């Protein structure tokens, strides 16, 4: 039995099921990161003093540029599919994966420097919340990379069998990816600048 409303929209919601599903998932993600941001506020307001200049602002700003660029390439990957340009879709999706990996490599060097300086989560409240927030965000990046690699590899076969469904899947992946970018847009000033 075929699952209904994968491509065509439901008459009651006007949406394909996957679209509503990814938005409900993102809503739960807002609450997950919201809980951690809320924790950050409690810790910061309650702390007698809060460290400044512990993180490399330029590395953080560089990673912001990388993620924003990856959001642009991601939306272009989806737009290329809508215009039936398979080659450009592949190029933009590969660029997105490349930028995501670049972000993770930068993060690795940043973490390695903190470990070298013995600035582990047990070092201070600041580093505890820093590693928790950026670690969870990094895992989301990794998850996005796995999904995109799937659509560059075995998942790409769907384009020939059902191009509309494949395009929808890339749209949902893009929505997730833009959300990950959006979280970093707030993490960067909160952790690196303030």
């Amino acid at each position, binding site marked *: 039995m075929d699952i209904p409303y994968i491509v065509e929209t439901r008459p009651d919601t006007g949406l394909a099921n996957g679209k509503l599903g990814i*938005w409900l998932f993102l809503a739960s993600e807002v609450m997950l990161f919201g809980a951690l941001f*809320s924790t950050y506020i409690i810790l910061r307001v*309650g702390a007698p003093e809060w460290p400044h200049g512990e993180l490399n602002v330029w590395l953080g700003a560089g990673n912001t540029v990388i993620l924003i660029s990856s959001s642009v390439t991601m939306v*272009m990957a989806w737009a290329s599919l809508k215009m039936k340009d398979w080659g450009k879709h592949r190029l933009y999706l590969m660029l997105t994966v490349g930028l995501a990996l670049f972000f993770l490599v930068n993060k690795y060097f940043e973490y390695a420097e903190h470990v070298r300086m013995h600035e582990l989560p047990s070092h201070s409240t600041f580093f505890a919340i820093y590693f928790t927030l950026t670690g969870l965000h990094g895992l989301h990046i990794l998850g996005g990379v796995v999904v995109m690699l799937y659509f560059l590899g075995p998942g790409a076969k769907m384009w020939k069998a059902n191009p509309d469904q494949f395009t929808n899947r890339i749209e949902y992946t893009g*929505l997730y990816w833009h959300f990950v970018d959006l979280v970093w847009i707030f993490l960067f000033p909160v952790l690196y600048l303030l």
Partner: protein
Amino acid sequence: MSDSSDIKSHLGKYWMIGAALLVFTGITVAANQLHLVVPLAITVALVIAITKGSMVAAVFMHLSHEKKWIYGSLILTVVFFIVLMTIPFLTINDTIGTPIHVSAPEHTGH
């Protein structure tokens, strides 16, 4: 937004928004170099972050023209998110367990 020609008309907007986001990132870092007082620095950084976040959500995530079911689920999320962000402020007013400071009786000298 499903028509191919419709998408083509949006391509320029995607690049423009991407460029604007990069400019705003530059402004955030530049404002940080000015070493503003903490309340002003927090305000400036958060206003820019909210502006950038709104641009990503409105254009890249197509929230500027979505169906009402998505807006409905997001309004519910925003309400709960505001409650979540209010909790820290409730803890500031929480005085349970805080010793009450009673002024010591005046020493009469006898």
